[in-house]
Structures are given as C-alpha cells and as structure tokens.
C-alpha cells in the first residue's frame, strides 16, 4: 500500500484495509521508534484557527523524526490579514515545504488546498467538516484500550451536530460492525445525512437525550465539548453548555471495562474525579496523537511504506 504523496483530507477517502494498514504502521512505530527518517524535510503548519494538541503534536512528531517545521499559529500572523486568498497562500507554501498541515475555519478548505498544492496536504480540521488525523488517533486509542475494533457498543455524547470528530469517527467505525448510541439534546443530535449513511450500511444505532439510558451497554463513551465557537447564538450555547456531565455517580452504572474518551479540550463535561479511574482514556488518547501523526507524516513523505 503506497501512501507517498497522498493527501489526507477526509476519513471517507480511506478504505477499511487502508485504515487497518495505517493503524498497523502506528503500532510498529510506537513499539520500535525510528529516528531522523524525516531529516531534510520541511513541514508547513498553517493554522488559521487556534489549536493546542493538533499543532503541538504535529510539530513534535516532525521534530522527533528529524524534520523541520515552519508556519503560523493563527490567521492574524499570516498574509490572510492583508486579504491573501487561501489558494495563493498554498501556492506559495508549496515551494517552501515538503508537506502541508492545515487547519482552517471554513469547510472544504483542506480539499481546496490539496488541489492547489503539488506536495501532500494533511487536514488538521476544516470547520465542522473533517479532522481525519484525530479520527485515526481515536481509532488507535480504541484498538489499544479495547484490544479490538469490531462489534463494539460505542456511545457519543455532547455536541453531535457540530462535532466533526464524532462524524468522522462514526463513519470510520462503521466499517467494524458497531452499535452506536447518540446521546444529545434534539437540537444537537447527529445530522441526518450521517444517520442516513449508517442506515444504508445497516449499522444499528439509537438516539436518546438521556445519558443514563444505555450506560450499561457501552464499551466506549466518546464525550465531546459543547463548542461555543460553533454556535451562531450565545443564548443557544448557554442553554446547552452544562447539559451532560460524566462523574462518579454516572460511573456507578457502567461496565467495568468502559473506556471514556474525549478529543479535548474539556470544559465541565467530565468531572476531574473521573481522571483517576481506570475508565479515563482521554489523556492516553491525546498522547496517541504523536505516533499517529508521525506515521502519517512518514507515510505521506514516502519514508515508510
């Protein structure tokens, strides 16, 4: 399987075999780290929107593999402020680097960048659309903590309407015969187009507003923040911000092996007391960003085959 020069824009571009292949490479890289395989390569990290984990883990991954990083951490410090189009920014970056990682608030921006660039482009989040590297690290975390990907009962709670990590993970896991539980207020439920896709793939799913209704069924609970920045209306945000809370009381009624995940940052949706329980998998999940992003950079740059 050759990933050299391949753009990583959407999880939908990956077949089941490709997903498993990438996860195998991640595992190998984690077990037997390779040093300096990206020496002489330059990563352009173009972050038009704030990010902590994604930007830092890409930077760290590139540097740990001997490569260098250029770029910016917000749109204010780029020529976008002067009115430069994204197309032009990418056309220019194309000549300065060997690979581009982009985060941008507008949907479709990563796909457009991939069309503009001759070097590979990795999508690090385009609005509420896609965030494929997060999905791969989520899958890797599930595989690592549960020992498998097949036949799992996976709950998603929080902002399922705007949460791109939820959309991508649900679609990626749909290759592995899961049962899904979508727990959200009606106004923030999973969008119909994703539910249609799951229905067509004959995936069993339940929708509920009650966090406790299926708590005993779950193998994995994927918690998301109610994202203030995605709400057009501040009042709407206030209405929903504290609607679900994972705490010790909730954990009294779950399977012993339940793993709780969260793409982070969290606000108040997971109580700190959960951190010290064996259920908490979210910090390990964040740590998995490094081997996953290392693998993707090395694959796209053709240094691992």
């Amino acid at each position, binding site marked *: 399987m050759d990933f050299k020069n391949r753009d990583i824009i959407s999880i939908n571009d990956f077949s089941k075999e490709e997903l498993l292949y990438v996860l195998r490479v991640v595992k190998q890289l984690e077990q037997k780290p390779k040093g300096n395989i990206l020496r002489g390569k330059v990563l352009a990290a173009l972050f038009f929107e704030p990010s902590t984990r994604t930007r830092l883990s890409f930077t760290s991954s590139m540097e740990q593999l001997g490569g260098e990083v250029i770029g910016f951490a917000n749109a204010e410090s780029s020529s976008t402020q002067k009115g430069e189009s994204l197309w032009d920014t990418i056309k220019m970056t194309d000549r300065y680097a060997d690979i581009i990682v982009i985060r941008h608030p507008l949907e*479709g921006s990563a796909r457009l960048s991939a069309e503009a660039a001759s070097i590979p482009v990795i999508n690090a989040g385009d609005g509420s659309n896609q965030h494929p590297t997060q999905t791969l690290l989520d899958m890797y975390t599930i595989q690592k903590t549960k020992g498998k990907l097949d036949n799992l009962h996976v709950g998603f709670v929080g902002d399922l309407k705007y949460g791109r990590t939820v959309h991508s993970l649900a679609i990626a896991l749909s290759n592995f015969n899961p049962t899904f539980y979508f727990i959200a207020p009606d106004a923030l439920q999973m969008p119909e187009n994703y539910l249609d896709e799951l229905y067509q793939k004959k995936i069993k799913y339940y929708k509920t507003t009650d966090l406790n209704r299926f708590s005993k069924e779950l193998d994995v609970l994927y918690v998301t923040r109610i994202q203030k920045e995605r709400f057009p209306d501040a009042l709407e945000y206030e209405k929903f911000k504290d609607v679900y809370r994972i705490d010790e009381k909730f954990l009294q009624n779950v399977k012993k092996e339940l793993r709780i995940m969260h793409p982070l940052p969290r606000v108040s949706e997971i109580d700190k007391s959960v951190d010290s329980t064996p259920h908490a998998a979210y910090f390990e999940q964040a740590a998995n960003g490094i081997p996953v992003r290392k693998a993707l950079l090395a694959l796209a740059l053709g240094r691992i085959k």
Partner: protein
Amino acid sequence: MARKKGRQGKKEKIRAKKIDPTKPKPEVKHELNISAIEEGTVIDHIPTDATFKVADILNLDKHNGVVSIATNLHSKRIGSKGIVKVAGKSLTHDEVNKIAIVAPDATVNIIKNFNVKEKIKVKTPDILENVIRCSNPVCITNSEQVNTKFYVV
C-alpha cells in the same frame, strides 16, 4: 390635421379610417415565431421554470450569436415547457450534461444546414463542476474565487 402635397402639387387631405363600432373588430393573428436556425443547438422540453437557469448554466449571456429563449410553451409531454435555441454553437456532451440538474428530460438537437445532425440525451454527470452554488455559508467556495465541485451520489 396633417397635410401633404399630392402628386400634382395639390393639397391632399388624409382622413383617418372610420371604424364602425357596431361591426366586429377584424381578427388580428399574433404568432410566436422563433425561426429555425441554420447551425447551432436547440434545447427542447426544458421545464418552463428552468429555462433561464439553462441559459445561465450554459453562459449564454456571453454568446455572440443569436440566442432565442421561449418559456410557457404548451407541451403534451410535460405540460408547460421552455425552448432555448443557440445559433452558431454546437454544444458538447459535457456542456449538455451540465443542465441535467435542472432539466433532466430535455432533448438537445445539434443543427447543421437546418437539419438535425445529432440528438443528445441529457445524462447526469458524476461530478458537477461550477454548476451549483454551495448552500453552506461556511463553505470555502463562498469566500474564495473557486469553482464548486459536487459529486453526484
């Protein structure tokens, strides 16, 4: 009253024709006439409300030849239809397929020497490029000067 000089220089009075209000008005025939074209393309059986959209999709406002557009014509097949005739331009299959989204049952005839040289059936393409505007306000295509691209599923 206007006067003008007659052939022999005499002044001639021009009288308005008197109309007898008791008699029925003479019947005047109005005919819609879109003339046949010698060379070009005729797009028929367009749903009448999509007619101008077809012209728009095909960028006919920039075409230099004669473009005739008729709407609200009677059609046995679809009730009310539109026709677009484009003189001096033979549409390609790709161009024809662009209109599939608004006029899937249109018939397209390529005309040479007043005769139908080729009939093209409209076929929905796999990708619609720069035909539809994205309705998502936070889509990049609404803020950058780029073509939209839709995959038909």
